[in-house]
């Protein structure tokens, strides 16, 4: 137990790293995922085909390989933010997590739009609503509600996936755990349990937030 208390600062730093990675990647993958979802229903077949190919390809690639592409291939292609090495790795990790998770966000959003009955949009159009109006007032409010649970599980999975960033130069919970074990080789189990509890706090906290949001937006249909 004292092994954990001695290294409390280390764990707090690791938790902060995990949460930072999560926050930036959540924003990034929601934006890119929405863009991909829009591209997948675009009126141009070439744009649709590109988005479909991207999602199919990246979804079937292991996240570790995506990380390897960004972290090892990025510098070769001149991808750099300059200066701080630590910041560089953090940006790489956020890019990798965003590229990967946006595919799953795209699928969740597409699934949500697909659950809106066709009659809803037809009724909106027959009332004379324009494309934008029917999207804003009829389709998206209904799709948004069904999207919350799958989007939640996608983002919770991403929170767990931030652990892979540890192997690519990031300071977060897993790297904190490894440092902790190096410091206190006699208290491996205590350090492991502490790390597990920190992750459970993150994942259970997130699932609580999403179930609250789900209840908040729920309506009888």
């Amino acid at each position, binding site marked *: 137990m004292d092994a954990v208390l001695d290294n409390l600062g280390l764990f707090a730093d690791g938790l902060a790293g995990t949460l930072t990675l999560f926050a930036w990647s959540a924003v990034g993958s929601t934006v890119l995922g929405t863009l991909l979802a829009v591209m997948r229903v675009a*009126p141009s077949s*070439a744009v649709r085909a590109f988005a479909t190919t991207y999602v199919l390809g990246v979804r*079937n690639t292991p996240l570790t390989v995506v990380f*390897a592409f960004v972290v*090892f291939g990025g510098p070769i292609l001149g991808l750099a933010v300059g200066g701080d090495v630590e910041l560089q790795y953090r940006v790489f990790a956020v890019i990798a997590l965003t590229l990967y998770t946006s595919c799953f966000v795209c699928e969740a959003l597409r699934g949500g739009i*697909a659950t809106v009955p*066709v009659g809803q949009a037809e009724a909106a159009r027959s009332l004379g609503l324009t494309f934008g109006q029917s999207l804003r007032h009829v389709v998206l409010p209904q799709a948004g509600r069904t999207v919350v649970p799958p989007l939640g599980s996608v983002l919770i999975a991403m929170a767990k996936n931030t652990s892979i960033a540890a*192997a690519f130069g990031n300071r977060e919970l897993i790297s904190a*755990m490894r440092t902790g074990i190096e410091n206190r080789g006699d208290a491996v189990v205590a350090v492991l349990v502490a790390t597990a509890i920190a992750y459970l706090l993150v994942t259970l906290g997130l699932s609580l937030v999403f179930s609250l949001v789900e209840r908040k937006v729920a309506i009888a249909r």
Partner: protein
Amino acid sequence: MSAPTSVLYDLPGPRALRRNRLIGVLGVLAVLGVLGLLLQRMAAAGQLTAARWTPFLYTDIQNALLDGLLATLRVAVIGGALALVLGVVLAAGQLSDHRVLRWPSVAVVQLLRGLPLLLLIFALFLGSGGAISVFWSLVLGLVLYNGSVLAEVFRAGVLAVPSGQWEAASALGLRKTATMRFVLVPQAVRSMLPVIVAQLVVLLKDSALGFIVGYAELLRQGRIIGATYFNVIPSLIVVAAIYIAINLLLGWLATRLERRSRRVPGQRATERAEEDVASSATGG
């Protein structure tokens, strides 16, 4: 096209067609711009020259990649088989009438699903002080994580079987075990087959975590080749292509299995054909 399009759009008129064509041209230009920039950067870094790609024609390199692939598949096959077993055991525990069995199963499943797989693998390796080898840490980590996810899948599948099935079985005088074995589980497995295969794809992808813990799998071999022949990006592209090909193959297999499992014994051939036509029409 797929369902969302039909919700969002009416049949386009002449003006909409003109606009769509404009969006199409702009979209294609944007996509080509991104791809062009990527290729231009790769060319500038000398990653597109023949010298960076010819190593993949060497037998040594192909054998190294094959070794990596076999190592990946070994982890995935052993892990997948054991995960299915663990999934069945945990699902049975969760559905048990006895609290002694139910509560620990529920707790274990919820705990394991809330932890990152990498943490489980490290916990097995470091927690055992190296007594569990890297290979088995990876395999057992994959088994624990995916087994608990599969347990939830099996449980959901059994619960999703219409209650009339269970009622009919008890009306016939079957006990709980027999109801499970002959009535509920066969139907649950049938309906859950696509999800089960999808989870096995996840397991195969997650085996790439072996790269992080120092197991010589496919990505590791790719990295070694990349470092030897200075073709970092080409070797990563080859590795990614292999993963994508295997996973697409598994996905295709899942679709085949799903279509096959929807056939009811004794169903007339014409109905079957109609069903296939209908499913291929909506399956886009």
